[in-house]
């Protein structure tokens, strides 16, 4: 009984910590309409700053809390709103998600540079000592966390429900223009919201840091508030009391599972389940609860859709591309770059290019945000390594089929989700797979999985050149497939379901089938890419397909252009080359890139000044300059075409 009480108190304390982070998410979402993926990373930075002040500089705890939470949180929140968010007004719904993901990878990148991950850093309790109550020991730190969480929840509830400023903070998301017409600056209100939300993130980081018995780490602290994500979703990103209750329930559930369920399971599964639990909670919350009405539906985000190459044109471009790759294969046969042969790097680029193409299909055309393509890659590579000895074409087929199947299964419960919720669900799936599956010693473990080079009867791709050209051929085939899909009836359905799901349903088309089909195709492509990635690299390990590299790659594709084949290829080049040159800086580049690209829906390749007119591509000279309005139909929304070859 005393154990149960002890676990309960610790669970409530844990939940109270999550509640602070979750209420921060709710505050930010309520006042800006943006779900801040970087909430955990902001808390992590706050925890490390607090550790610097208290453990290194011996600043008094109260002063450190004021500096980090009040001052640091307010300034950081104001900056995030002013520099990152304000310029996204009118952007597509997925862009704020991408920008907060960009901030997440920037913050983790900076933290890795500033605070070496190899150093151990433990944070002392803010208040020491304990007392006994009904036979159990309760630490003052636990009481502090629970008390602060309650005070924060009550205070925020009072602010939003009983004060004029609170009404204005809520109103700014409903209609910022109308708020301005009522005499209130929507920008200022939004900024206050971000300041409050960031202060909550910092408070959660500082309070939860001492609970990390093995010391604070960048990844653990960043992902620690993921349980906060689940609680915020249960609270439908609006209700602070429900969010608070959900956070406490999740803290309790987590602690009970760890103490009562895990001891009865095989020991090797314990760490997997422990790590995957937060994501499982989040995934369950997303697929079981009614989704919140999304804002910003049906906004016109770009005047012109990217041009889609015609059938003949794409065949010619693909053949030219393949010939160019063959020339590269001959010219750089024995050249190495930073310790890796150019052909191996080329193979990695081509296989990642296929993942990029899967994102073009999934996000670029059908508007479904997926952060789990790297997870499918990892599953594909694992299947490839385990089927028919690891170097068989059967492995390629199996990797594609298995991932397509899993993709369909994952997408079934998430069909009704869109934008933010789909991003969150795929984020949860990706991290659960990475921490609960790839990290297992029986799957990838410490040594990784060996994957041989592909040998067909009478045809071997054992040589570097042959293998590079084989992967290139797969990339070209995948590009043709993606473009063919876009030109087909199914492709038009994808664009239609993205533009207006309601209109799509009213003409009698099945949204669910279309979404599941495209998700499965994209997952199959990512699985194939993972198998090819494995054959190029020889050995793949758990870190190859972790959550952060996957997020970073999605950002690079978005930066270049998530709507074009060229964007997918250039993203793969950028990712591989940067990883080779400065592995720790890849996240920084991705984060800064997505911030700089701002709300440009078509990425770098969509910016007219950067476009190159290819000789065989018909231009659209009439799109330059200001166009008069259509006489009766309002703004002419359908555009001409950009000059980037698909």
């Amino acid at each position: 009984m005393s154990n149960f009480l002890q676990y309960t108190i610790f669970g409530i304390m844990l939940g109270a910590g999550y509640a602070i982070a979750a209420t921060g998410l709710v505050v930010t979402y309520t006042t800006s309409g943006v779900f801040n993926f970087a909430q955990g990373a902001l808390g992590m930075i706050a925890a490390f700053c607090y550790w610097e002040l208290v453990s290194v500089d011996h600043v008094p705890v109260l002063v450190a809390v004021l500096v980090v939470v009040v001052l640091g949180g307010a300034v950081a929140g104001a900056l995030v709103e002013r520099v990152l968010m304000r310029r996204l007004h009118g952007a597509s719904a997925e862009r704020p998600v991408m920008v907060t993901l960009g901030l997440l990878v920037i913050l983790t990148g900076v933290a890795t540079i500033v605070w070496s991950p190899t150093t151990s850093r433990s944070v002392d309790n803010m208040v020491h000592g304990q007392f006994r109550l009904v036979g159990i020991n309760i630490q003052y730190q636990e009481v502090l966390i629970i008390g602060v969480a309650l005070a924060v929840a009550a205070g925020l509830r009072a602010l939003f429900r009983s004060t004029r400023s609170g009404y204005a903070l809520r109103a700014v998301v409903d209609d910022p223009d109308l708020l301005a017409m009522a005499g209130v600056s929507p920008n200022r209100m939004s900024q206050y919201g971000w300041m409050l939300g960031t202060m909550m993130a910092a408070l959660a980081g500082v309070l939860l840091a001492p609970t990390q018995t093995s010391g604070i780490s960048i990844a653990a602290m960043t992902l620690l508030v993921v349980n906060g994500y689940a609680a915020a979703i249960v609270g439908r990103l609006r209700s602070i009391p429900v969010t608070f209750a959900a956070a406490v329930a999740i803290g309790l559930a987590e602690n009970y599972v760890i103490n009562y369920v895990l001891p009865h399971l095989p020991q090797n599964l314990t760490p997997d389940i422990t790590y995957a639990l937060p994501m499982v909670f989040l995934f369950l919350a997303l697929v079981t609860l009614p989704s919140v009405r999304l804002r910003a539906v049906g906004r016109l985000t770009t005047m012109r859709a990217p041009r889609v190459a015609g059938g003949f044109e794409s065949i010619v471009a693909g053949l030219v591309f393949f010939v160019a790759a063959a020339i590269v294969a001959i010219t750089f046969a024995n050249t190495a770059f930073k310790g890796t042969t150019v052909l191996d790097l080329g193979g990695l680029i081509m296989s990642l290019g296929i993942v990029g193409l899967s994102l073009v299909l999934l996000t670029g055309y059908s508007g479904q945000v997926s952060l789990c393509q790297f997870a499918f890659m990892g599953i594909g590579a694992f299947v490839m390594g385990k089927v028919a000895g690891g170097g068989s074409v059967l492995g390629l087929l199996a990797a594609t089929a298995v991932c397509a199947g899993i993709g369909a299964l994952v997408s079934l419960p998430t069909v009704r989700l869109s934008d933010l919720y789909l991003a969150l669900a795929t984020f949860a799936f990706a991290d659960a797979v990475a921490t609960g599956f790839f990290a297992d010693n029986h799957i990838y473990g410490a040594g990784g999985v060996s994957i041989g080079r592909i040998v067909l009867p009478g045809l071997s791709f054992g040589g570097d050149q042959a293998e590079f050209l084989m992967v290139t051929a797969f990339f070209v085939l995948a590009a043709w497939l993606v473009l063919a899909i876009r030109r087909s009836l199914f492709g038009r359905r994808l664009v239609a379901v993205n533009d207006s799901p309601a209109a799509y349903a009213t003409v009698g088309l099945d949204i669910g089938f279309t979404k599941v089909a495209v998700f499965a195709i994209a997952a199959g492509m990512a699985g194939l890419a993972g198998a090819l990635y494995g054959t190029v690299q020889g050995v793949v390990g758990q870190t190859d397909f972790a959550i952060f590299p996957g997020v970073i790659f999605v950002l690079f594709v978005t930066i270049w252009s998530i709507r074009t084949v060229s964007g997918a290829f250039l993203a793969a080049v950028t990712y591989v080359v940067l990883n080779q040159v400065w592995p720790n800086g890849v996240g920084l580049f991705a984060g800064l890139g997505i911030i700089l690209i701002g709300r440009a829906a078509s990425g770098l390749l969509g910016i007219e000044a950067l476009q190159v007119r290819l000789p065989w591509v018909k231009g659209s000279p009439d799109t330059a300059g200001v166009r008069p309005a259509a006489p009766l139909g309002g703004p002419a929304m359908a555009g001409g075409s950009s000059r980037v070859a698909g």
Partner: protein
Amino acid sequence: MSANGPAAGDGATTTALPPAVTVTGLRAAYGRIEVLHGVDLTVPAGSVFALLGPNGAGKSTLLKVISGRLRPIAGEVRIGELTVGRTPAEKLARQGVCAIPEGRGIFPNLTVRENLRIWTYRGGITMRDVEEQSFAAFPRLKERRRQMAGTLSGGEQQMLAISRALVTRPRLLLLDELSMGLAPLVVHELYELVEGLARQGMTVLLVEQFVTTALAVADRAAIMVHGRVEQEGTPEAMGEAALSAYLA
């Protein structure tokens, strides 16, 4: 019709009243798409001015510019001594410009009472005054004061929206498609209130699809076609012209 300005439908080019709003050579665009191509317009102080025209004529865009929600690319808008253009909408609101946009100017996720509380940001008015005046004019709002505004009927939402003009007493009221989607009786009730506000000296500039409704309350009217003011004059003179503009 004329590139140099609107034709005067009643033969008069000026009015005796001083102008509340003066628009000169105004051009405005959404990105690359220019919607207003040089609008000239004068709204006399204390009048009810109806802006008519077919869909896509630029009427709502003109209201957006006047209320500070869209920055013009050329030309000038003056509201009394105030120059619109670089002045943010919230500052214009505090200076006495009340714009009620198309499609209910309310916050749907706030209760009726919370919406009313937001109106007090205009300054110089207490929540008590706001509630007294709003509930006196629209008793139905009192019954629904704890209800989410988004769950009110269309007419009740429009009542809540127009209560802002009622309680903040602006010098200029901009109304965009007040009657959209409402029953005729509700429209009648709302326009009676607008007439009452105008009688108290408030200048009203309204955009309306229903020509007869608008002309019944207006002192002057103008017809916009293709981003320009084509004609301007008395309601009587504008009736026929409006019909041909809509059918053109």
